[in-house]
């Protein structure tokens, strides 16, 4: 494992700036407040140092009461005002940071929306996303470290400049000639040497702590693994649905065995070893060395004061300012280290945000036809999932007849759902083409093309939001149309009993007064959503899998009514559903092996359809 950051400083800096640009778009208010806060933070210590030095100087020299009181009052007013402004800026910055912390996730959500479905469906995409989340989780690395680092940079640069302003007179006030040998302190060379030592020590200290920081981030792999282990096995007991299995199979043994591997952040992990060794020592040295600067400043200023250049009050000013300045140089170096370490993690963030859209996006609009006369055809279509060896679909050709009902049947993995995914252009085929009214569907604008399809997927999802919004897929919708869609989907009676009608919140995830609905009811709402869209094609993928026989029969009975004058496609592995479709296509190993009506297909005793049908029907048709 290399301890060095893997990227150049300039790259890290440009990553940091790009991240800041993105965050600034998410919340325009944050960065100005951050900058103001850093400026005030940087100046505050010097204000205190300046005023207390004035009081001490007066005490060391003339001890005039009215001058003393003037400085005390001015000092109290100034430091008090600074403290109040600082508090206000700090709290506002904290508020906006909390806001930004949550809001920056919108960047990722929007990216997810716009990804090609192929990428959305790819495990690598989600692994990348998880990695980003984990890096943020264990050490705050990634986007949200950027404001912190930039704040530190700004604050310390201003700090160094202010410190310099307060120490200029330290160098320009000469030791009087009467001090003899000590007039060497006036020599510019001497001053240069002292300054060089101070800068060198600051840089060394900053270097030590930056190296130490790099050791910490170098353990990210083990740390992230530890966090995943901790999250899964440590909180295992909280998952209700596991309870029965855990007891019958004594799973606590396996859980304990794996829990014992959870040492990434413990005393025997890599991080702890690093902390006992180089990471801890470097960090200690980095912090300790800074006091050498204070020592140097004391030597130089005290000798000058001792030789009569200025009074002891000024000594406190110079020491205070120089120490604060050295602290700033040290912090600046650490911030550079952080910036560099974080640069690597930002690469991961950008790798995700920059996933390209490989799918061709056409611009043709579909013709709006009131007669719903859209003709869709698969012509010699073959498709392989990215990275897979086998064809999921092989040379499939089929033409949908407008206004008819088509059933698609076949075993698990025979290509039924893949077929639908291609039809909806979630994927593009590698070979062959899919045509809408004779034109390759890739040439249409995607959103426009999707307007002609309504799909109820096997794993359809509703959101814990108002019922009506779920049906319409938006917050402002046509209530009458939504109600009609629900009634047509067979949800009418249940709608009557919903406490707030269409405004009733579904599920309790979002608000406590939400209403829990059964799987069957959810399915009807999903169908209503498909009806609300009122597209010429309606596709139902295994809509009865979760239902008991009575609910299933209800959906079967309503199917014709639901489909209306639309072209309907019904996918199922319950063959009973084929009875009410005009045509059946049987899928096997990615190809359509049989087509025809139920009677025609059943007549072929050696066909796949006959085999599937008998497997199920034997239990119902026997004696």
């Amino acid at each position, binding site marked *: 494992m290399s301890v060095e950051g893997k990227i150049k400083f300039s790259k890290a800096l440009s990553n940091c700036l790009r991240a800041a640009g993105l965050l600034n778009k998410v919340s325009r208010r944050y960065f100005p407040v951050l900058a103001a806060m850093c400026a005030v933070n940087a100046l505050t210590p010097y204000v205190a140092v300046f005023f207390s030095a004035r009081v001490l100087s007066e005490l060391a020299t003339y001890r005039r*009461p009215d001058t003393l009181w003037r400085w005390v009052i001015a000092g109290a007013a100034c430091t008090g005002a600074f403290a109040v402004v600082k508090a206000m800026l700090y709290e506002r910055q904290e508020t906006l940071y909390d806001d930004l912390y949550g809001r920056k996730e919108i960047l990722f*959500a929007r990216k997810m929306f716009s990804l090609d479905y192929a990428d959305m469906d790819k495990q690598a995409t989600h692994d990348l996303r998880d990695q980003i989340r984990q890096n943020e989780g264990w050490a705050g690395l990634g986007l949200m470290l950027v404001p912190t680092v930039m704040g530190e940079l700004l604050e310390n640069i201003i700090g160094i400049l202010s410190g310099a302003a307060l120490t200029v007179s330290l160098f320009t006030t000469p030791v009087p000639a009467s001090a003899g040998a000590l007039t060497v302190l006036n020599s510019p060379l001497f001053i240069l040497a002292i300054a060089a030592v101070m800068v060198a020590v600051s840089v060394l200290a900053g270097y030590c702590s930056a190296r130490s920081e790099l050791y910490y981030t170098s353990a990210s792999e083990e740390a992230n693994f530890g966090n995943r282990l901790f999250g899964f096995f440590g909180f295992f007991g909280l998952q209700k649905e596991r309870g029965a299995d855990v007891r019958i199979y004594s799973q606590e043994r396996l859980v304990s065995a794996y829990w014992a591997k959870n040492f990434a952040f413990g005393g025997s992990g890599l991080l702890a070893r690093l902390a006992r060794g180089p990471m801890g020592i470097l960090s200690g040295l980095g912090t300790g060395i800074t006091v050498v600067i204070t020592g140097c400043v004391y030597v130089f200023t005290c000798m000058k004061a001792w030789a009569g250049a200025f009074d002891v009050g000024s000594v406190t000013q110079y020491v205070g300012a120089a120490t604060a300045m050295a602290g700033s140089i040290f912090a600046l170096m650490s911030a550079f280290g952080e910036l560099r370490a974080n640069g690597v993690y930002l690469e991961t963030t950008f790798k995700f945000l920059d996933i390209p859209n490989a799918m061709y996006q056409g611009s043709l609009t579909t013709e709006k036809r009131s007669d719903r006369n859209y003709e869709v055809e698969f012509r010699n279509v073959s498709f392989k999932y990215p990275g897979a060896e086998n064809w999921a679909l092989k040379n499939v050709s089929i033409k949908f007849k407008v206004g008819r009902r088509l059933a698609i049947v076949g075993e698990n993995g025979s290509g039924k759902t893949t077929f639908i995914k291609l039809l909806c252009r979630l994927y593009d085929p590698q070979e062959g083409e899919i045509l809408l009214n004779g034109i390759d569907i890739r040439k249409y604008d995607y959103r426009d093309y999707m307007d002609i399809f309504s799909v109820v997927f096997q794993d359809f999802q509703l959101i814990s939001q108002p019922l009506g919004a779920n049906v319409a897929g938006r917050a402002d919708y046509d209530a009458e149309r939504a109600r009609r869609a629900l009634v047509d989907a067979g949800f009418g009676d249940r709608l009557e009993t919903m406490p707030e009608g269409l405004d009733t919140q579904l599920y309790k995830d979002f608000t406590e007064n939400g209403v829990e609905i059964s799987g069957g009811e959810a399915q009807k709402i999903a169908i209503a959503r498909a009806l609300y869209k009122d597209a010429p094609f309606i596709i139902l993928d295994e809509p009865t899998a979760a239902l008991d026989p009575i609910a299933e029969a209800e959906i079967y009975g309503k199917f014709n009514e639901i489909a209306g004058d639309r072209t309907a496609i019904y996918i199922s592995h319950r063959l009973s559903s084929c009875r009410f479709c005009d045509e059946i296509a049987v899928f096997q190993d990615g190809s359509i092996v049989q087509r025809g009506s139920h009677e025609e297909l059943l007549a072929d005793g050696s066909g796949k359809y006959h085999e599937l049908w008998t497997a199920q029907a034997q239990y119902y048709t026997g*004696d």
Partner: protein
Amino acid sequence: MNEKTKPKYGIAQNVLWIVKIAWSTRKRVLVFCLLTATLEVLYNLAQLYIAPEILKRVEGHESLSSLLWTIAFFTASIFLVLVLKDYIKENTMYPRVDVRSVITGKLTEKSNATSYPNTLNADFIKLRERAYNACDGNREATELIWQTLTLLLQNTAGFVIYLTILSRLDLTLILAVAATCAVGFFVSRYTNNWTFTHREAEDVYYAKKRYIRGKAESVELAKDIRVFGLQNWLNDLLESVHDVYLDFRLKVERVRLLTDITEALMTAARNVIAYVYLINMALREGLSVAEFLLYFTAVTTFTTWVMGILREAVRLHQQSLDISRVREFLEYPEPFKFEGGEPVPGADGYELKLERVSFRYPGAEADTIHELDLTVKAGEKLAVVGLNGAGKTTLVRLLCGLFDPTEGRVLLNGRDIRDFNRREYYKLFSAVFQEFSILDVTVAENIAQTKEDIDYEKLRECVERAGLTKTVDGLPNGFDTHVGREVYLDGVLFSGGQTQRLMLARALYKDAPILMLDEPTAALDPIAENDIYMKYNDMTAGKTSVFISHRLASTRFCDRIIFLADGRIAEEGTHESLLKLGGEYAKLFEVQSRYYQEGREF
């Protein structure tokens, strides 16, 4: 909420409890607390004296070597203290995490082993959540308490030392300074209380943000998002949940600002008081600049000790509450007998009997199972059918001993199962439930449910019988492939059908005398389903078995069928006799089979 209920253990008891755990886990935790407190006090004293001691020598124009030696002495001391302090700081976290892990491990053990009804008990769940919250991270009670104890120690030591330094000064000065502390403390307590009472509100905002973000990024919703164009709706929802949170957060800001501004003003007041007193003293008594500086620093930093003690005492109180909940959870009473129960006697066959059993879920208005009598004879194959909500799953849980009946008894070969060691009783069962627990461990471990002594021959045989051989052979590391992606990045995800077969293989591997199958084929296609049915006889040979399904086709392999409705046995018999009866079962069968009948029109 049980916020109000009195904690079972006091502060001293809880500190002692966790110190004992640290003592037996990592003694370093305690050593580091002492060292850190000592070094912090030393550092503070060095900082207090460095400027006055050096300035005294400049002011008094002492010899140059004495001046330089003083500077060297302080620089070296501070250097040493700083290096040590920081080195220890870098090392404190790890042993503390170990202690917290040990406690978290105890929580998980308790959750996994507790009587099953506890896991559905609202009181238990709430307590468990609080206990887990106390272990959830570095900032929670079971780890943060070490920092609190360190700070208490350090602040108390500092307080005592400073009192002796300041004893030369007027008591009223010290009291005046202490008064500014008190004002700051009470205002900050107000803020803390406010934040605490609004914590739940804040959690709700977090939950909402998390929910909408989760949905926006979910793979499952991705298809619907694209097909129905849900992007705009979700975008608006995302913006609005964050806007609402920001409004709340601005309210929090105002309350927090109150403390901050009070603190700023009190600090200014403290400085003025110290200046007035010390300048007067300097003018009157001719205090040197060095002395002035020493006292000024001492007076103004004296308050940090006082504030520190007050603040940490409040924190310790809160942490002690949290730790008490952890202990109360670990000691939560168990309704079942485990180690104290009788051993389950061995037998050739096992008969299960329900004797007028009723079961009602806590808080429910009606019984889920009502006065039910049922005997499952040794070696019998029983099928349980019924509509969703008829009580099938609850019946299985009663038979498995996951629930105890509200009324009546469950008997194993004539003995009430409540007398047995429940963990031993569970060993009698192989089960496939509708909800299952797959671990992110290897395929082999998921089937064998152990890490050691896996019988690979038996494993292969069970996988073959469950129809999973092809799948396992296709995995990158075969049996040693990890399942799931939450822990291991090279893990694989199984489809619904594959998962069901994996669960079946696990049940077969356990090879217990009683087999319970709750809808084990719902995710399978017809041919696969048929395949399992065909193997059913072979699987259940020599075992007592219960098969639950709402697909009536499956019940034909069973010796006897009971039709459950509203928690009662509505009908009972063989498939043929039930059809002849012409009751609910026959009607249900008709509904399911009508589409399979030849020559019918729709």
